[in-house]
């Protein structure tokens, strides 16, 4: 695979050490996957993504814009996207809130776009330098109306690189905004990582393909023909419900068809979109379902559980939406209960409960004090719960 590596950035990463910060890995993934337009407004803890893009994009012939706020930033990205550019922006909670209306516009206009949200403690200004996973449901339902959403969650520096690449690919192939969620710890931490080794980080769900047609993937069949600005013809783009000509329609049948196609193009391709990893598969009586930095706690807890002889498996989700229905139900069928540690008051646990409650009990383990959930805390909770829930 030929990647468009930015050599200046490569040189600033110590080649013998390969210690990379999460936010930088995200920028590197964006550059390697062909992102050539970035408009943003700085905000802790995502600013290093913007800083890196500001320095690197001009060197590879791309465009970087610092805008006056996050609304302008995402709108500039949508504009660039409609001309055929691969566009991305990055922000944190307060900025993500401002972007919501435009995300809906991009969904209806079918403008491919990647939005990175490095989550910090909210609501409002919250605590800028502490991690959180409080934006999960905002990433799904933050903009109004029945719209599709593809939401990925990064748990380490390697994820920041490869999930940014996945987000770019998904955005292009499904022509829709894709949100990549990270948190303060993942964004700011530095970790041993080499982009060349990314193939080593395989997922049990079958990785996305980095090779053939990676940079310009085919569109799925449900996508409407794109109207690219600046090319021949008279394109028309609107946030109104429209038909194949791009012009608005009030026809009930066409309206329903349009919205269903938006929905189907994401939900019908779960097999491709849902990235996950199961540890200790089929050997546990109970399952920890986790994403983002909590998945790291869960993996560490699994090691402790093995030492103590507790039968545990871990489902590490990289894709939160579309909901990974099949794997959650498979786990639910074989486990006494599912424990979901997350840095919010159980936002994703409610989603999992909807899918799993026919087969098992779903227990939320939320934490909102700004610190990570430790492996020991997860294990202590498991020890309290184990044996209390019989298999149905």
């Amino acid at each position, binding site marked *: 695979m030929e990647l468009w590596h930015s050599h200046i950035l490569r040189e600033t990463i110590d080649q013998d*050490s390969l210690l990379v910060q999460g936010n930088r890995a995200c920028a590197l993934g964006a550059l390697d996957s062909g992102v050539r337009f970035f408009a943003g407004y700085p905000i802790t803890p995502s600013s290093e993504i913007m800083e890196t893009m500001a320095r690197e994009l001009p060197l590879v012939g791309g465009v970087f814009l610092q805008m006056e706020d996050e609304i302008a930033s995402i709108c500039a990205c949508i504009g660039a996207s409609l001309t055929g550019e691969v566009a991305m922006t990055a922000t944190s909670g307060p900025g993500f809130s401002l972007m919501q209306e435009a995300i809906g516009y991009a969904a209806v206009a079918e403008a491919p776009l990647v939005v990175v949200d490095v989550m910090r403690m909210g609501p409002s200004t919250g605590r800028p330098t502490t991690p959180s996973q409080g934006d999960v449901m905002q990433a799904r339902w933050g903009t109004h109306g029945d719209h599709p959403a593809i939401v990925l969650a990064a748990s380490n520096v390697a994820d920041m690189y490869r999930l940014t690449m996945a987000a770019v690919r998904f955005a292009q192939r499904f022509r829709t905004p894709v949100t990549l969620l990270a948190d303060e710890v993942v964004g700011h931490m530095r*970790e041993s990582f080499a982009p060349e080794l990314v193939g080593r980080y395989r997922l049990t769900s079958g990785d996305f393909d980095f090779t053939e047609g990676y940079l310009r993937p085919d569109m799925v069949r449900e996508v409407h023909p794109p109207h690219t600005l600046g090319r021949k013809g008279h394109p028309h783009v609107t946030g109104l419900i429209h038909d194949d000509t791009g012009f608005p329609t009030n026809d009930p049948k066409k309206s329903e068809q349009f919205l269903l196609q938006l929905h189907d193009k994401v939900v019908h391709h779960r097999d491709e979109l849902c990235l996950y990893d199961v540890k200790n598969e089929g050997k546990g009586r109970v399952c920890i379902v986790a994403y983002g930095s909590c998945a790291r706690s869960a993996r560490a807890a699994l090691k402790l559980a093995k030492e103590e002889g507790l039968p545990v498996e871990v489902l590490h989700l990289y894709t939160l939406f579309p909901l990974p229905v099949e794997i959650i139900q498979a786990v639910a069928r074989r486990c006494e209960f599912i424990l979901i540690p997350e840095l919010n008051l159980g936002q994703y646990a409610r989603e999992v409960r909807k899918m799993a409650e026919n087969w098992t009990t779903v227990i939320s383990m939320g934490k909102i004090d700004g610190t990570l959930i430790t492996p*020991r805390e997860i294990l202590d909770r498991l020890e309290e719960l184990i044996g209390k829930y019989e298999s149905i």
Partner: protein
Amino acid sequence: MTDAQAQTDGMVIASDAGKPLAERHFLEVRFGGSGGQGVILMGVILAVAATRDHRYVVQTQSYGPEARGGYSRSDVIIARNPVDYPQLTGIDLLVALSAEAAQKYTGFVRSHGVFIFDSGVLATPPRITADTYGVPFAKLALEATGRAQTANILTLGAVVGLTGIISPDSLEKAVLSMVPKGTEEMNQAAMRRGLELDGEEWRVR
């Protein structure tokens, strides 16, 4: 990290118990001080140096919302296997450059750990069951380079000299690649002064 978590030793590998820091498979290091002392840079340099030694490394930091002053800390996990949980569950090596950091973090240091502090800012360190070294880093830095700002690099040299957790060669390469251009020689001098400190001379207990 709360008091309760400090006692769990969650990630400690049984075979590491009682071994010198340099021989351990899993090592948790914290640098504590106040904003502006270069505490986060110390963690980053140690992390770069340790990856040069082919270790798995995770470096995290915590700081207040203010740009200067306030607390600042930098944590590094150095391991022979991939690291799952990215933050510290206890401290094997604590380096404190302010009295507040020493007071705040010594409670988390494990037995058989190492505690290194700047004796210029803290006359009587908290008594803990760790090998304790007190060195007037800022004063030594001023003598060695004429600039007290090089104290963080001198301290890094001392940390490596006293514990041997990474190779001096990797440290030198990391320092030279991370410090601002034009200050390489000065920082090299500070690092070497730190490396040659005699453990017996500065050992408190």
